[in-house]
């Protein structure tokens, strides 16, 4: 494949053309990604997937008119050998035509008056440890299949009758050049394993594992937990509506924490899809709640060295002792609000990347002991808002859900719904366990690390008929 230097030369060529055309700002990014996937169903492999993708993205601002495009006619760059000058010139010619089209496209558009430019570099980047693993990049077909088999066997060993899920690996390189003087590149790997164990039609447990290194991926432990929950959820009964103390497992709370983190984006706030509008420096959660976004954590699933405009990533406190500390910004939105970028670009929409809810001191058992009558919810899905600005929403427990009485699991339940308000939930977090797990899942886009969480006074509804 064409060398990194040649790829960077192409990106610089595009950026220089844009600058020459009068760009206020130009950001050109490139990525080469390869990945594989095994999907398993009812204890058997149902399908494999293999992917190889290369692309170039262009972000261009002239006279405050913001436009984007992508450039994918780059087959030349994907040949097995480094290409020669003639090939590079063909590519540059294609890129020039895209740039010309972009200029024509942007001409009649209206300016974004609140655009205030990208960051000025260059910057020094810290290498983040543990986000690339050649063992993932070079994982053999034999090893991939063996790992899936281990996962399946682990759920069955816990009593599950059948399981389904997915094992994905990905390896890629990202490049960035900007009119702000940035030239940056990074590489990374990731592995993701999701398994749902079923005992009967209404008895299931789900868990995922995600990591940047193969040694960090604990497939068997994750699979065992899914199998254990499925076994525990045997013969569920219809639950009753009411207000309960609820222990959320990391997968369940992670799906809601994802929404909490997303609501800190200044874009979400401006668009009316955040329940944190006008809440800066106000109490939005119980004082035991500390949430930060930290893409610099070694080996973490959402870690990366620089954001979409090339600013080195940093740790940002989102909620400290229950107080909302910041919205997430890129350079332009930060200038608009007379603050500093949080290195969270998204050039259009800044956002969180690697969210952590700080664990507490109690053991998970302690959380159970503190409940006279309550629920244990291991997963939720289909979170939808009636009003994002107010935070009113509902979501549906999925997989094992249990009635807790006097600190002990009494009965598996089914067919209930959490009908709540996000701020109410955050303010009623009463205890955080000391265990912590990083979660991504079908419902969790932003990697979140969370312990088991105890929340009081959670409104639970059920079908009226």
């Amino acid at each position, binding site marked *: 494949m064409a060398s990194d230097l040649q790829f960077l030369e192409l990106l610089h060529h595009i950026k220089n053309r844009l600058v020459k055309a009068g760009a206020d700002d130009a950001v050109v990014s490139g990525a080469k990604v390869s990945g594989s996937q*095994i*999907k398993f169903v*009812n204890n*058997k492999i*149902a*399908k*494999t*997937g*293999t*992917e*190889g*993708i*290369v*692309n170039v993205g262009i972000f261009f601002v002239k006279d405050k008119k913001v*436009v*984007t495009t992508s450039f*994918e*006619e780059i087959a*030349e760059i994907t040949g*097995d050998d480094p290409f020669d000058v003639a090939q590079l010139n063909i590519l540059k010619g294609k890129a020039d035509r895209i740039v010309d089209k972009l200029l024509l*496209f942007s001409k*009649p558009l*209206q300016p*974004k008056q609140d655009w205030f430019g990208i960051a000025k570099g260059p910057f020094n980047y810290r290498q983040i440890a543990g986000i690339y693993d050649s063992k993932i990049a070079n994982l053999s*077909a034999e090893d*991939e*299949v063996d790992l*899936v088999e281990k996962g*399946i066997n682990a759920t069955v060993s816990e009593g599950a009758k059948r*399981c*389904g899920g*997915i094992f*994905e690996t990905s390896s890629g390189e990202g490049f960035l050049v900007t009119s702000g003087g940035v030239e940056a590149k990074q590489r990374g790997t990731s592995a993701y394993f999701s*398994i749902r164990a*079923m005992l009967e*039609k209404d008895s299931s447990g789900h868990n995922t594992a995600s990591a940047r290194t193969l040694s960090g991926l604990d497939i068997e432990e994750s699979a065992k937990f899914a199998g254990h929950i499925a076994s525990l959820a045997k013969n569920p009964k219809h639950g009753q509506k009411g207000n309960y103390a609820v222990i959320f497992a990391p997968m369940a709370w992670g799906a809601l924490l994802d929404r909490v983190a997303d609501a800190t984006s200044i*874009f979400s706030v*401006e*668009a*009316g899809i955040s329940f944190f509008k006008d809440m800066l420096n106000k109490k939005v959660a119980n004082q035991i709640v500390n949430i930060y976004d930290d893409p610099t954590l070694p080996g973490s699933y959402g870690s990366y060295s620089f954001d979409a405009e090339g600013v080195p990533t940093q740790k940002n406190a989102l909620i400290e002792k229950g107080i909302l500390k910041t919205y997430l910004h890129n350079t332009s939105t930060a200038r608009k609000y007379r603050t500093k970028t949080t290195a969270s670009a998204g050039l*259009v929409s800044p956002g969180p990347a690697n969210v952590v809810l700080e664990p507490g001191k109690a053991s998970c058992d302690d959380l159970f002991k503190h409940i006279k009558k309550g629920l244990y919810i291991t997963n939720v*899905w*289909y979170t*939808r*808002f*009636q009003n994002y*600005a*107010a935070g*009113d*929403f*509902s979501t*549906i427990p*999925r997989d094992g859900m249990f009635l807790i009485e006097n600190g002990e699991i009494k009965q598996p339940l089914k067919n209930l*719904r959490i*009908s709540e308000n996000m701020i109410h939930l955050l303010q009623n977090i009463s205890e955080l366990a000391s265990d912590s797990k990083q979660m991504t899942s*079908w419902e969790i886009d932003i990697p979140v690390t969370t312990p088991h969480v105890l929340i009081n006074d959670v409104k639970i*509804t059920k*079908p*009226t*008929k």
Partner: protein
Amino acid sequence: MANELADFAIKHAASLGASYAEARLENTEADAFVAKNGVLEVSGFDTSLGLGIRFIVKNTLGFVSTNMLEKSKLKHLIEKAVKLTARSSKITDGVSLSKEPVEKAKYKVSQKKNVLDIRPEEKVGLLKDIESSLAETKISLPGRYLSLSSGVTKKYYVNSDGSVIESEIPRINFYYMLTILRGAKTAQRMWQYGSASGWEITDKWNLPSLLKSEAMALDKNLKDGVKPPVGVTDLVIGPEIAGIIAHESCGHPFEADRILGREAAQAGESYMTIDMIGKKFANPCVTLVDDPTVPGAFGYYLYDDEGVKARRRFLIKKGIISEILQNRETAATLKTHSNGSARASEFNKEAIIRMANTFFLPGEYKTEQELIEGVKSGVYIKNFMEWNIDDKRYNNRYVGAEAYLIKNGKITVPVISPAIEVTTPALYRSIDALAQNLEFHSASCGKGEPMQGIPVTHGGPSIRLRGLKLGK
């Protein structure tokens, strides 16, 4: 050139031992415009071109995709994919595909005004017109998010059975989210309009007037709205809610891959079982279909992504469960034929069973008004905001946005957030009449892993539900 690569890909897969192979080359050209609170946030255009190849090796299904349309790279990727798939045969039950007719076809949706010929200023002009129309209401609207995208997808599909299908389908998609503020109270509404048509469809939509009416209705709801009634009541729901019900509690659970457990770890399974086919499910007034061939519908297609000819599927016929959505894999398992339900959201995703355009057929009542006239005391729910359903599609919730009390057959005062929270069997049993005001609404439906958001339509006429209790 790229078509030849698709042909080459299936031959190469066969040379490596594939007993079946198909290739899907997709080329999409599109543009998009996003306005937030009256400011054009970002605009852009994209071209994507890529190839997805599916094959069977050692009775195991493999898929490989790339946008690196270069022969040596493609060969290398196919070889890698075949190796992984062959190894995976160690733990498979074996896959087979139903035998289907070989198809040779070429079709395109004709456009009076090609979406790619419409200048950016005209597209932005539509967003500006909506902004002006909203401003005329003088209502406080602190959040206005508008997004408009349109494009054309050309597909070249070829399989080792001999099918070759070429298609060209344009799509336009408009999405909005409004926040209405009155005093300290807010209300929100998001919805989508989509169609597989040329730009001319935007004249029919009349979006500036539509959004203006909605903003005014929701403002009135905030101002005068009363709490929903407690106790058992009758409901009349508008076509938007009929559509979401059709999609969520009939379309999804009638997908054969969910019923067979193939989506268990993703979108879930189903309350449906194969032995329910032929059994009574609703009153005889209920007929519910999924039909990819409805012209202009957002989920329109004539051949699916397995090369099978599309047709109308009767999911519920006169209250009886009639048919489920099949692809070639589930059809082989269930010893039947595919009904053309396989689709992929883009070249680098496997084709899985998807709804296309799912809707209740019209009933015997001419108008919505006639349904309302038959309600002594109840609630009319025109549209909704919050909704969800469990992963077996049994436990539904639809919360009204614009809604009104019905007294003695007449619409009276607005109602705030009436919540229909009901099981699917009870919901379908409660339907006693349908009107003839059939409407189609569009959405992006999510399924699969990696997630595939795909254009669908859902709809129906207004529907009357008897004897339900609203949730809180």
